[in-house]
């Protein structure tokens, strides 16, 4: 079987203890559900010396405070899949992997999911045969075919819709707590696509309660009906009135995921608000998406096809949202 390099395990009982344990031990890493980090350790992509267990440290479930939904980072995806206050988020959580992994994986782990790549998430032997790559032990990116940039894919299913819903995260560090917009968590770097410092812990994800004329959806493109990571994902959130070709959006956010290290909030879609989202406008929006989104070959599926799919998925998603 796949063997993991030696580590010790320290269970934390609170977020503070988790942060303390992390900073106390060299080579520490957090483990929540473990469904991302354990396969990575088995593949020797990372070899932490100490695993700080979060299962009992993190808040779980959600509540509504001051017009916002406050979700515990320890919430399992299977629970999140029944979150009726945020149905599009529930859809996204319900599309992660398969049922068992949703019973294990947490919201925090899903947000912090490491970037993925066809040349990375492989065994040590395979990566050795490849000559490794920039992100782990090597010097060359086999996707870009160059020595500088890693474009491993941000593959989380909940992140695009959370971003479209303008979520914030609450982060605990050794010097206290802070909040930042989820969008600010990410940067275009497949090696480290998270901006928060290592060892900082996400305790909560906060989503403003959607207004009454809010509509949102999440679509995931994958080969199989379960287990697969997204080849492409599209989250749309809007304030809308009317139906059909007469539908008008007052605000519109479209986030495209699984194309590169960054969940991409597509620039320029605001220009399509305040006027009827008729078929021609939807097609124009589709064309904009296609122009802006350049899927990388770090994920399964022909990049050109995935690009076409970004356009079609957005067009179909908007038409469905129009009603």
């Amino acid at each position: 079987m796949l063997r993991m390099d030696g580590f010790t395990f320290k269970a934390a009982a609170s977020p503070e203890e988790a942060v303390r344990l992390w900073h106390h031990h060299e080579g520490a890493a957090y483990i929540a559900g473990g469904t991302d980090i354990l396969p990575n350790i088995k593949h020797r992509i990372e070899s932490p010396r100490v695993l700080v267990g979060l299962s009992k440290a993190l808040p779980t479930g959600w509540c509504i405070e001051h017009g916002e939904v406050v979700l515990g980072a320890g919430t399992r995806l299977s629970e999140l899949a029944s979150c009726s206050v945020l149905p599009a988020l529930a859809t996204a959580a319900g599309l992660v992997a398969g049922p068992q992994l949703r019973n294990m994986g947490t919201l925090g782990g899903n947000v912090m999911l490491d970037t993925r790549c066809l040349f990375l998430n492989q065994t040590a032997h395979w990566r050795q045969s490849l000559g490794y790559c920039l992100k782990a032990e090597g010097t060359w990116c086999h996707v870009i075919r160059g020595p500088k940039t890693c474009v491993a894919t941000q593959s989380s299913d909940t992140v695009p819709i959370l971003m479209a819903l303008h979520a914030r995260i609450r982060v605990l560090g050794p010097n206290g707590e802070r909040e930042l917009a989820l969008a600010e968590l990410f940067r275009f770097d497949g090696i480290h696509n998270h901006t928060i410092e290592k060892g900082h812990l996400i305790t909560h994800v906060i989503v403003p309660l959607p207004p009454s004329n809010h509509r949102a959806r999440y679509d995931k493109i994958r080969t199989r009906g379960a287990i697969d990571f997204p080849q492409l994902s599209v989250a749309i959130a809007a304030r809308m009135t009317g139906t059909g070709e007469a539908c008008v959006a007052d605000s519109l956010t479209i986030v495209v995921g699984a194309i590169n290290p960054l969940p991409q909030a597509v620039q320029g879609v605001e220009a399509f608000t305040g006027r009827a989202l008729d078929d021609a406008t939807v097609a124009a929006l589709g064309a904009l998406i296609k122009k802006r989104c350049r899927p990388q070959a770090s994920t399964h599926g022909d990049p050109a096809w995935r690009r076409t799919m970004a356009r079609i998925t957005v067009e179909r998603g908007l038409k469905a949202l129009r009603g």
Partner: protein
Amino acid sequence: MTATAKPAHSVPAQVLQVHVNGEPEVALAPPTWTLLEVLRYKLGLVGTKQGCDKGDCGACTVLMDGRPILSCCTLAVMAQDAKITTIEGIPPRVPQAFDAAGALQCGFCQPGMICSAHALLEVNDCPSDREIRQAISGNLCRCTGYTKIVEAVHLASARPKNERSPTPMVSSAPADGLRTVGARGRKPGALDKALGRIPYTDDIVLPRMAHGRILRSPHPHAKIVSIDTSEAEALPGVYAVMTGADLPTPFCIIPWTPDEHALAPDKVRYVGDGVAAVAAVDEETALRACDRIAVEYEILPPVLSLDAAEAADAPLVHARDWKGRARTSNLCKEVALAFGSVDEGLAEGAASIDQTWFYEGNTHVPIEPHCALADWSSEQRLTLWSATQVPHYLHRELARVLDIPQAQIRVIQPALGGAFGGKSEPFDLEFCAAYLARKAGRPVKILYTREEVFYSHRGRHPMEMRLQMAADAAGHLTAVDHDIRIDGGGYHSFGMVTTYYAGQLLTGPVDFPAYRFRARRFYTNKPCCGPKRGHGSVQPRFSFECGLDELAHKLGIDPIEMRRRNALESGSTTVNGLFVPSTGLQECLDVVARDSQWDRRYGKLPFGRGLGVACSMYISGTAYPIYPNKMPQSGVSLLADRSGRITITCGASDIGQGSDAMLAWVVSEETGLSPERIVVKSADTDLTPVDLGAYSSRMTYMVGLAAQEAGRAMQAKMRDALAAHWGVPADRIGVGHGVWFDKTDTARQVDVHQVLILAETAEGRPLQTVGGYRTRDLGGQYRGGSIGASPAYSTTAHVAEVVVDPQTGIVTVERVWVAHDCGRAINPLMVEGQIEGSVYMGYAEALMEAQVFDERGLHTGPNLLDYRIPTSIETPDIIAKIVETIDPGGPYGAKEAGEGPLHPAIPAIANAIFDAVDIRLRQIPFTPDRVLAALRAADVERRV
């Protein structure tokens, strides 16, 4: 596998407390151990299985606080405060329903599947099909096509919760005039396999057992300049190290083409080729030792495609052949045969086609990874337990490579978790476990990682097929010409058989008067291809059945009608000299045409939706016994015991297909003993008469006839004894269900147990009979004419219904209607399972599976996340119907059902895509990007 250059840290074991199946348990294990490992290897709860060890397959599913989780991705330390339920702790309702519904094939996915199903029923009493498919969507099954699993969950939901509902072994009436044959029923032992009570190879643990690992090449093509194992040998905990030099005798499943070694002695031929092996106290240490083996390679240019292999200046994958003669090319085998006037036939047709198809390679993916365990006695006798489907051939090759007499070797095939042809020849782990165990002086187990399963491969060959064929205006074919190039990978394997099969097996159930084929298999620097379900013939069937569809359209003839007009008739001989005693093509077409409402719907559905038809014929065993001999190809022995049971011993491999059940059914038929009273012991070379193994769909026909002979001999002894006892002529004795009777006075009855006692008394010695099967000479009178010749042939027809999204190129196969002529269905429940599993596997090949290598010779994803096998969600509805043309030679008229039904799946889907959106796809898999490209090329997108 090599690990990484990073230093390896070991951490001491600690005491773990877990609460499993209601009991507090304590185990000593390092914190790096997963729950799966602790359950299996520390607590002996081997019911929980491992299929990928990284979250992709669901075999390791257990319940944590009632919810399904994957134990391979859960550290045991993380499970300490939870309540764990494993299959051993699941109440009987769901497992029994799985057994009753025929959902248990190899059983390997089932513990996890049953856990998921049980958890669903705990929260949902009466789930819909959709809810069931969702709930089991993280549990991959390679055998069933999920059809019977969904039925089983429905069945369980209808049964009371905490009660046992044992189903009788036989659950329906037998065929007219028969006692057991034709009755639906459960498989002996299936339930215990699924409950973890019957061990698979990796479930077996021996005292002092060591663990082996194989160091594999990172290069596709390289000379081994030197290997230094001294550092590995010096590592504490290492018991033995070996290299290719230790076992210099080459081997091959085909005895006259030995081109492979236990470990590569001088040259590696694909990424993953074994170069050294280590046995150590545990896998960690063995791996660390592998890291310390220094191999110096001289890199050679790799040959990675058919074109590269055929190029004039191509590097040679094998510089010499097995006789030591220098090779001048990478051609491994060429077969060229011609029958009838092909050129005239092609020229005179009213319509013709000339197209090239490409069948991408793919592989078996049994959920159980290969595993072997070797142990030597103090008398230097070797016992090898192995996940093999050919114990007898393995037995022979072990003797050859280890250079010891066959009489010193015992091969045992424990329960087997799926094979599909992927375990039908010897593999490096078997030789290495045996050698290392001898050297280490202790038992050695080697378990492949999932990655190694992909490298051992022997799956479907990539084939490029140029097909020319023509038909007259009435649709009668006039000639067929196939030119086929086969990408064989690094070694020979069954290569010469594959090369013959690619041409020889095409000549029915659609008949034609003139045929020519040339098939050429080339060596390349990729893992070696071999036999996958429908060996050698699935690929040309794709081109042929698609070509036939094209011809039908050119001629304006309905594709089903086209096939009917060319149907081979029972009792005729094909153009290449295969005598086909029975074929049910017309009946199969009747069924699928009716069920799919073909006449009303074909060609008339809205754009984007389509129907497609295809058919095929397949062998029921092969006349050719792999090594030439005139001994029986199958032997069965029966021994009655005084408790009123009969024990069957037979070398046949039950790989999940149900051959043990078939044996029980046949002996039950002949003796009147119910199958519950029949014990089947199979595949142990010390105890069971030789059977050649589970390949070429030979089991039901060949093993069945041997069992029938043994059963009839037993019946004769019993009849004579009873007749003597009653003082009546033997022909007055009748055999019924559990009782024997006097035909002239049917009230006069005696229990079959009593008859066995009478017979043993009369015999004066243990009551024992044997039966054997040997094929008579078959096939055409030309060189190679016997290869592909079979005593009987099955026939299949499919109609697939697809929806193609013309904007995205995404193809959805909604349902497949399949009718399969298996002659007599000995146990229809098992036959349906084989048909459904075949359709599933064919569907997967058509739409998503591909074993592809990049320009470095690297497998593009040797794991179950990148190599996608369908889940319960996207797998189409499969409506399987059995057609019974009673074959004159088969046992009770039976023929094969395990491989034939796969063939038409791919062309039927391709033909349905044409009906839906007017494009002809000539390369599998039909991925959305390819479909979209074809649609754009045909410029049909704007029509919607």
